[in-house]
């Protein structure tokens, strides 16, 4: 083990890898701080670039950029009342209210420091939990993986705030899109209509660039001429008053980080939901809930810790089971497959140095956030002055070239265009897009484990429950389904 850790240090502390980390940190801060560009979009845009790197710098780039982007989203929230990423939306009004009271410095200082600390807690849990879970998971058979995938996908819909029926629809469509191409069990080309490009399947990266970036651009160009003006031009001392906040609200920090890590680890829910839940919890348990909404720091401490801790948490199921904790780790899993490293417990056995390298990068990224985040806050005035009418066309061209690079043919661009429009239409009609992407990523694992289990059990469904952990996971999945059905049917009965 110690030799693997040593090897991991060697992999990370390499001039090339460190340069990649530094550049992706700056990229993440920039994308996160620009309202309308999300952390998921940052990851989607990074993938074509990381495609050509070896696993450690590729993962390092994604880890660093997402951590930075989630923090940087707090800056325009406080200055312009526009969340830089959806993860900051929960406390945008509160932050802005603080800025109007003249507490911009305290607000940003708290956001920076507690983002770093929350992020570190998330990483700590990841480091402690992942290897032991992997030891458990090493004994898993196709039955356990089948239920795990089902449970993961169900959770993704159960937790999300929208309409569960539309969530399931999105998921099923994603899984069905994953069926296009050569089928994994028998090698028969499905839904390809004789098209050679479709035989290779629906390439995941251009699809995701379409859904997460192009559809976002289509929304963004509508408001291209709307720009905010920062409440205050100069930023003073950031860390004044921080000690008092920490003394007063350290329980909020701990609770926010714990809840954030947990929500991150649940499949399908990430930093945005973590922030909403933590903000609501802070208010619920506060001694002075009447102050919330008037520029009160308590809820911000809790939720800014939560959204950064969720990033580390989301990697737990992704690394251990290959089941994404949120849409960012869904992309990570796609990247891992592209690199020929199938995520799951075997990575811990075969390539432990890679896992340790990810841990080290996580810690490094969070520590880097302090100086770089500080610099970003100082330069925020200039950063936020970059006009969107210049930025959006450049991002569009980047999407086009990135999608092309994934297939080395126009097929990638066509996929990107189709799914950009589809993603936009879905969001307009209240159909969430994240389940579609999760379905597309997990489709093969789900089908493979399902078919293997069916063949092993000869179609006997009870066998799916015979192994203890499989039985537990199966029961849990069925209970969740039952609960959702009950929840879905209840208003219908009330209406009649």
């Amino acid at each position: 083990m110690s030799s693997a850790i040593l090897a991991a240090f060697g992999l990370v502390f390499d001039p090339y890898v460190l340069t990649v980390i530094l550049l992706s940190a700056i990229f993440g801060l920039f994308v996160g701080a620009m309202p309308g560009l999300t952390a998921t979009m940052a990851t989607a845009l990074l993938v074509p670039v990381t495609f050509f790197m070896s696993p450690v710098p590729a993962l390092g780039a994604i880890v660093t950029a997402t951590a930075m982007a989630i923090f940087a989203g707090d800056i325009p929230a406080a200055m312009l009342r526009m969340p830089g990423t959806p993860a900051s939306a929960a406390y945008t009004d509160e932050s802005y209210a603080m800025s109007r009271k003249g507490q911009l410095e305290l607000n940003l200082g708290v956001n920076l420091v507690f983002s770093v600390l929350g992020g570190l807690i998330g990483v700590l849990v990841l480091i402690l939990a992942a290897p032991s879970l992997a030891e458990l998971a090493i004994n898993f058979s196709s039955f356990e993986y089948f239920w795990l995938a089902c449970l993961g996908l169900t959770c993704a819909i159960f937790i999300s705030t929208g309409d569960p029926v539309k969530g399931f629809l999105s998921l099923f469509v994603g899984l069905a899109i994953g069926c296009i191409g050569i089928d994994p069990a028998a090698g028969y080309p499905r839904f390809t209509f004789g098209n050679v490009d479709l035989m290779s399947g629906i390439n995941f990266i251009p699809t995701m660039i379409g859904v997460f970036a192009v559809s976002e651009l289509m929304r963004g160009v509508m408001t291209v001429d709307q720009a905010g003006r920062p409440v205050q031009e100069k930023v003073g001392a950031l860390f004044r008053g921080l000690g008092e906040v920490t003394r007063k609200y350290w329980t909020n920090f701990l609770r926010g980080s714990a809840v954030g890590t947990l929500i991150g680890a649940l499949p399908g829910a990430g930093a945005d939901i973590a922030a909403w839940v933590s903000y609501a919890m802070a208010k619920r348990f506060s001694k002075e809930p009447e102050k919330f909404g008037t520029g009160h720091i308590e809820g911000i401490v809790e939720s800014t810790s939560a959204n950064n801790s969720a990033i580390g948490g989301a990697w737990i199921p992704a690394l251990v089971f290959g089941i994404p904790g949120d849409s960012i780790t869904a992309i990570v899993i796609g990247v891992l497959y592209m690199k020929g490293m199938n995520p799951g417990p075997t990575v811990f056995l075969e390539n432990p140095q890679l896992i340790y390298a990810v841990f080290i990068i996580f810690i490094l990224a969070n520590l880097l956030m302090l100086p770089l985040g500080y610099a970003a806050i100082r330069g925020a005035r200039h950063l936020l002055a970059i006009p969107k009418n210049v930025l959006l066309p450049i991002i569009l061209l980047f999407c086009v070239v990135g999608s092309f690079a994934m297939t080395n043919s126009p097929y990638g661009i066509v996929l990107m265009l189709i799914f950009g429009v589809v993603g936009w239409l879905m969001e307009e009609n209240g159909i969430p897009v994240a389940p579609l992407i999760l379905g597309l990523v997990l489709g093969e694992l789900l089908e493979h484990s399902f078919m293997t289990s069916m063949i092993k059990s000869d179609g006997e469904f009870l066998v799916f429950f015979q192994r203890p952990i499989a039985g537990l996971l199966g029961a849990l999945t069925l209970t969740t389904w039952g609960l959702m059905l009950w929840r879905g049917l209840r208003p219908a009965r009330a209406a009649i």
Partner: protein
Amino acid sequence: MRVHDTLLGLFFAALAVAILILTADFPSFPGQKYGPSLFPRILGVGILVCAVVIAWRGWRESRRTGGRRIVAVDAAFADPGKLASFLLVPAGVGFYLLAADRLGFIPTAFALLAGLFLWFRVRPLPALAIAALTTGLMQWFFGTLMRVPLPRGLFMQLIHGG
């Protein structure tokens, strides 16, 4: 653009039926009970169930509230300028798809960027300069550094003589 839930449901129901019909042609293998059609069929049924529920809910709601527009378009689209901006995103990608192979990456990307910049009212001189700079950076990064075979087209042929 919000489509009425009934119509939305019917659309997805049609998709599900299409999936189910297509799977009928999938081969089964002797001695093997479960072939390549099983999983997509389950998904087809799943889509169908969701679609029917959505359509039914939409229909029930419109009976209760006296109906709603079949397709409701966002108010911002009434502004022709905004509508054009919106359409320019997919149209820009379409332009790239049509032109890149013939013209080559550099002129196509430059035209795409310059066109969009000018439409979004970037002043002409900076627009052209930024378009040229970005195109050059992309060609260098993806074309040279990452060795992505960006389309050469007429442009490169003229420069390199084939």
